[in-house]
């Protein structure tokens, strides 16, 4: 077994675009679920809207890349209003069912043959990179870096841009949550009726939280789309569930929890995807083949999600007093 390459492949996921994208989307989910108590099961839909908004703006309408990102964000705001207006006045599980259904509607609309001209249906979109790469401030030739982190100029640009987005997003969440607005939001989570009795418009606060978290979700989708392609089969319901695993692993009502959760999640997944086939090949796991060893990772994700929620619902960094599961 080649431990060098296994560890190097694993370490690469510390700053991979997938990790960054999941961290952004999970941060949005922290605003929804962790701080406001909104059961949004449609974060995959917000990500899909961000990714497709970005790619379609560039491919079909010849817009600059940064306008594409803004359009992705604007589309997610519209989506948040469509989700929020019918459901935010109702009990929490209604929001859950409507968000999960709407995310699936969004995915099916992007996958169907009917809009093939814009979405390229099940094959997804690609080749929209020119504008983003032209804006690259790094001009070096070839691969640069150290240890497992060696990338070309485009690779570094995607990562630096993504990490900058994560830092800005985390800063915004941190500032918001220590502001008066954040205190009302947490009050909505703890006791909606008490906040309403204080004269606050709970519906408006919930809607604002849904919009902000949704924008982070859309940015996650954009970062996922930046290096490679938009693949519709990524944005399934399971993606939202993986984000919940990440969020609850790190701590739902924290700023650094979702980011740390995304890093831990992807590093463990990458480690297992490298080490399990290697173990199979040297005969250490005689009861499975390499395909099964890849499936095993997702069984472990499910089991991990159950164990976290049962035994440490506040996550690694969370505070037991700030438990989201109050009801």
């Amino acid at each position: 077994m080649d431990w060098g390459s296994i560890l190097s492949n694993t370490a690469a996921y510390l700053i991979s675009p997938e990790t960054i994208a999941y961290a952004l989307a999970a941060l949005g989910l922290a605003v929804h679920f962790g701080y406001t108590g909104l059961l949004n099961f449609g974060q995959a839909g917000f990500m899909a809207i961000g990714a497709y908004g970005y790619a379609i703006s560039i491919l079909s309408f010849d817009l600059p890349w940064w306008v594409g990102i803004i359009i992705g964000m604007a589309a997610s705001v519209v989506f948040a209003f469509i989700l929020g207006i019918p459901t935010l006045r109702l009990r929490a599980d209604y929001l859950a069912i409507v968000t999960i259904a709407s995310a699936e509607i969004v995915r099916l609309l992007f996958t169907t043959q009917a809009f093939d001209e814009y979405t390229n249906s099940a094959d997804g979109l690609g080749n929209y990179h020119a504008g983003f790469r032209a804006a690259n401030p790094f001009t070096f030739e070839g691969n640069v870096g150290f240890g497992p982190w060696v990338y070309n100029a485009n690779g570094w640009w995607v990562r630096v841009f993504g990490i900058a987005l994560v830092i800005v997003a985390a800063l915004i969440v941190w500032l918001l949550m220590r502001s008066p607005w954040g205190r009302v939001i947490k009050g909505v989570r703890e006791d909606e009726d008490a906040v309403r009795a204080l004269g606050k418009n709970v519906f408006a606060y919930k809607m604002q939280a849904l919009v902000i978290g949704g924008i982070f979700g859309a940015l996650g989708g954009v970062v996922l789309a930046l290096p490679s392609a938009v693949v519709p089969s990524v944005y399934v319901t399971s993606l939202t569930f993986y984000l919940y695993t990440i969020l609850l692993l790190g701590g739902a009502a924290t700023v650094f929890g979702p980011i740390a959760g995304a890093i831990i999640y992807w590093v463990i997944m990458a480690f297992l995807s490298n080490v399990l086939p290697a173990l199979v090949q040297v005969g250490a796991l005689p009861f499975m083949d390499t395909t099964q060893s890849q499936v095993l990772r997702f069984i472990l994700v499910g089991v991990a999600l159950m164990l976290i929620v049962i035994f440490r619902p506040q996550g690694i960094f969370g505070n037991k007093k700030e438990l989201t599961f109050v009801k």
Partner: protein
Amino acid sequence: MSAAHADEINVEGNDYYFAGNVKYNSEPLEGVLIKVSGGGYNAEVKTGDDGKWKIGVPSKDTYDVTLDESTLPKGVIVVEGEATREAEFGLTNSAAVNFFLGEGVRVTVSFWDQLVERLFNGLNFGLMLALAAIGASLVFGTTGLSNFAHAEMVTFGAIMAFVFSVNLAWPLYLAIPVAVILSAVLGLFLDAGLWRPLRKRGTGIVQLMIVSIGLSLALRYVFQYFIGGGTYQLPGSSSDSLTLFGSVKLTATDIVSMVVSVIVLLAVAWWLLRTRIGKATRAISDNSSLASASGIDVDRVVRIVWILGAALAGLSGILWAYFRPGIKWDMGASILLLIFAAITLGGLGTAFGALVGSLIVGILVEVSTLWIPSDLKYVGALVVLVLVLLVRPQGILGRRERIG
């Protein structure tokens, strides 16, 4: 005579091609239009005077090959299979696609016949959905849990039916009951091993919901671990279709499936309305603490509900395997949202609401394909779900007080 020259298109420059020979009574037919489409690629060609055709395609994938029946001589149609068929490559770079022609009248199905056929399909689908939805609804009513792992109990029933009927080659009349019983055992096992201890700990309902999501992911991938990513057929899944009236075609499996669903649903309704345990179940759904205070053993009833719900889900999974058709590791997950939509439409936690909601969703999904593309058919049902919640959040049979 010059070499038999098939009429070709896009064969140069593409690595793969489909070819065929259109003949009727051993006579080649000229000028028959053949179309190939798939993966965003389209091409068409007319057969040459020798009846042959050849169409190049860019990749080694599955394509739809269509024979345009309107270009056939009068009185000749495709007699075996459809005029459009899926074609794929074997080990070589070419594949033969031949249509079997015969005498007949081309059936143009009228709108009403199509509507009636879709209604029947939708009814079948809805009844099957109802079996799964009633179980999930009873569990929600008695424990407050929106159980995402219900989808995996659906898949479990189908996989068990496959294991016993195909792997162990038991006859279906034994394999299916055994699969349903094993599903019930799974329900008992999950309640005793997971949900009851969590209830005893006083775990909140949102927490339970997320545990069920974790369980759903874990079970789904356990299924994939053992059966892989392929689709498998249960015995008897390709039975002949019978023409009922007009052009309404149903297979024997469809009819058996509908009859079984109706009988089981009637039995469940009788159980809920007439037996002590059934009445206790409804009492707990109504008000758990009041039921407990009036001497109902809530834990026992919840255990029975889990067993019953899992058995119904397993049965519905077997019927779903015939309806799709085929068994796949994520087959339950693909209808989970429709089950939730049915429960919410009917009114959360009411068993009869789940039945009504399922029938509406089932019929809606099938009938809506008359107007919208079939790859969007689930969208119609989900949009209706969102719209109904706008005007009547408590669902069709729900009561206003439930929405909180």
